[in-house]
């Protein structure tokens, strides 16, 4: 685990907002519209809240019997002819994938979107070893061509305008930079990608759900790209996090109804493909990856984050994410779910993330599997505070504020001095006025000439000593 400098989401978000008047408003509007569609879809199902509850219970049950379901999945997948591999961490995952490719002389790989493969930094690992990796999801391919990680777990290039994409394609695949028609750009990339599917010696996917009962895994996409990647090349490798397990086929009836509605406000993804064993003449390898998940399962305050089905609804609803862009989080997972997952990989590096939130709570209410996201953000702040990772200025101010608020005489003395002495809001609310950013975009509130307490003593003196 790297001990890199902390990522600074507030500073990165400021850059996203201040770059121009186009990107942030577009990002916010698109994701808000997605939320509106999600609300409509959810409202059309009278049993929506019940479904969330059932989904949450199924995930809790599976996670508390994870060893059992993992072994059941392995046995059933093996019975159907798949090869199951176990990876303790990212390095093991990458090495397993590399040996599979290397042993078969594969030089080019086509892959669909997988946050787990992002988490494992698989692509740079393979490319360093001479294997060409091509993303087949359109948004993910855009990000790959631009040398950026995905900024959203469902819409990887959502922070880009179509003009950005036109410029990028002009630079990388030779399209007309002036043509930013989405149909044209999509068709251009389709034509560019087709030969890559045919050239690839292997296709890789992730897995949205792994069904213990049958050894099946499901991949949900809108472009059908995972299906081609899994069907054309002779070798299919799927990377699946161990938390993706669900017990039975019939449980899919719960999760499929929630997933696309939460993710994009659509009843279902265009493709919901089941993979049970290899296709005729092909090879199927499943890599089950832990990479910190077992440790997370042992964290009383945070294990519920393993229920996540990666729909991204918490990102779409998050007012802070919508203004920040996902790259501001400087981590594999961004938005509210990223804020609670990323610190489990590196507490120091991601120590600022839990503070990049207003704790509004919308993420917890939108989550289709009822993860207490907002409460976990607050709990991560407590962890960071205990570790001494609070920004220094904040720490000093709170030591003073904590003392003053705990001692009424000092508080009222400060009030009396502060009133006539400064015209603006009290020091403990605004910290150091010499660098306090409140004043950059906002007028400061003015202190009243007389506090409520002073007014009370003058106007309700007969009540003044109810208790003391």
């Amino acid at each position: 685990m790297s001990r890199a400098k902390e990522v600074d989401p507030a500073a990165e978000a400021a850059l996203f907002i201040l770059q121009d008047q186009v990107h942030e408003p577009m990002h916010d509007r698109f994701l808000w519209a997605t939320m509106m569609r999600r609300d409509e879809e959810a409202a059309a199902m009278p049993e929506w809240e019940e479904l969330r509850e059932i989904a949450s219970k199924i995930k809790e049950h599976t996670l508390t019997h994870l060893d059992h379901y993992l072994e059941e999945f392995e046995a059933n997948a093996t019975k159907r002819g798949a090869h199951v591999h176990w990876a303790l961490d990212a390095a093991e995952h990458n090495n397993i994938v590399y040996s599979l490719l290397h042993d078969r002389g594969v030089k080019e790989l086509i892959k669909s979107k997988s946050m787990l493969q992002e988490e494992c930094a698989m692509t740079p690992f393979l490319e360093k070893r001479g294997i060409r990796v091509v993303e087949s999801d359109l948004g993910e391919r855009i990000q790959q061509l631009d040398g950026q990680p995905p900024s959203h777990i469902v819409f990887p290039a959502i922070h880009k305008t179509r003009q950005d994409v036109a410029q990028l394609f002009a630079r990388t695949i030779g399209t007309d930079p002036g043509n930013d028609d989405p149909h044209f750009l999509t068709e251009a990339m389709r034509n560019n990608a087709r030969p890559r599917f045919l050239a690839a010696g292997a296709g890789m996917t992730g897995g949205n759900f792994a069904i213990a009962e049958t050894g099946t895994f499901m991949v949900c996409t809108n472009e059908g790209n995972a299906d081609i990647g899994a069907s054309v090349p002779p070798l299919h490798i799927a990377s699946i996090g161990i938390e993706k397990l669900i017990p039975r086929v019939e449980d899919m009836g719960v999760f499929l109804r929630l997933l696309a509605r939460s993710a994009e406000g659509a009843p279902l993804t265009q493709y919901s493909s089941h993979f049970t064993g290899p296709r005729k003449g092909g090879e199927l390898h499943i890599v089950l990856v832990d990479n910190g998940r077992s440790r997370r399962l042992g964290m009383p305050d945070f294990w519920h984050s393993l229920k996540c089905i990666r729909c991204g609804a918490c990102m779409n609803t998050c007012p802070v994410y919508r203004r920040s862009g996902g790259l501001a989080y400087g981590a594999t997972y961004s938005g509210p779910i990223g804020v609670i997952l990323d610190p489990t990989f590196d507490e120091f590096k991601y120590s600022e993330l839990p503070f990049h939130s207003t704790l509004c709570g919308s993420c917890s209410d939108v989550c289709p599997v009822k993860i207490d996201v907002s409460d976990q953000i607050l709990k991560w702040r407590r962890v960071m505070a205990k570790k001494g990772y609070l920004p220094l200025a904040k720490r000093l101010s709170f030591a003073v504020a904590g003392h003053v608020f705990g001692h009424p005489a000092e508080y009222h003395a400060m009030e009396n001095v502060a009133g006539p002495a400064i015209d603006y809001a009290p020091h403990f609310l605004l910290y150091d006025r010499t660098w306090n950013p409140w004043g950059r975009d906002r007028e400061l509130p003015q202190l009243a000439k007389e506090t409520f307490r002073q007014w009370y003593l003058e106007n309700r003196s007969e009540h003044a000593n109810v208790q003391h």
Partner: protein
Amino acid sequence: MAIPDEATNGKAFSPDMKIGLFIPCYIDMIYPEVGIATLELLERFGLNVGYPLNQTCCGQPMSNSGDEANAAATERLFVENFRGYDCIVGPAGSCVKQVRCHFDTLPQTDDVRHVRQRTYELVEFLHDVLKVDSFPWAEFPHSVAIHNSCSSIRGLAIAKPSEIMGASFDKTEALLSKVKRLVLVPVDRPDDCFGFGGTFCVTDEAVSARMGLDKVHDHLRHGAEYVVSPDMSCLMHQQGVARRAGLDLKYIHVAQVLNAGPF
């Protein structure tokens, strides 16, 4: 909604009860008129209201930053000040949520439990406990946009969060609709947070300011003259944004409207 069981107690209300008036620190110093309106309003219903003079803060600024150690003395003092009252009423959703939902790192003594269970935000106290059906003294001939804070919506269930499916309700709206000549205007994003978030508004200044500005425009677009909220802290942020941008919107607390002033 993450509401602990203790948040929804249905104990009957008796007029002899001693009501403790909780005036959060920033209202005390910046918006004393909100404290006055709250006190006068409660007195209009003939309640026995006392104001403990030793009160300071609820601990939220420290607690929200994860700093439980520095919050603890403040939280203990809060309990000490208010344990003698039957009900505690404060005109501030986020501060009441702090007491009710986040006083969980203190040892849960009888006093702590009593104070947590019996602390109400003003709107829910009027709506759920007093069940007020009219404000005959109140008249407000203006167009008003409601801003319920996130803490009030998602922590105290003052209104239905838009993400949760089910029958819609808004207790602030229910009370304001009883005020003569007041016209409520709808907004596009009624429960989208607009970026105060306590220390967030200074540590995450650019995002906070942008969220605030978006909200101001939402209100202006719908022709609101006033934004009325049960949470003055949200309004403090929004008012600062509107003033800086030179936009004409007025921000007042729901207590001032329901009590007919002071403004």
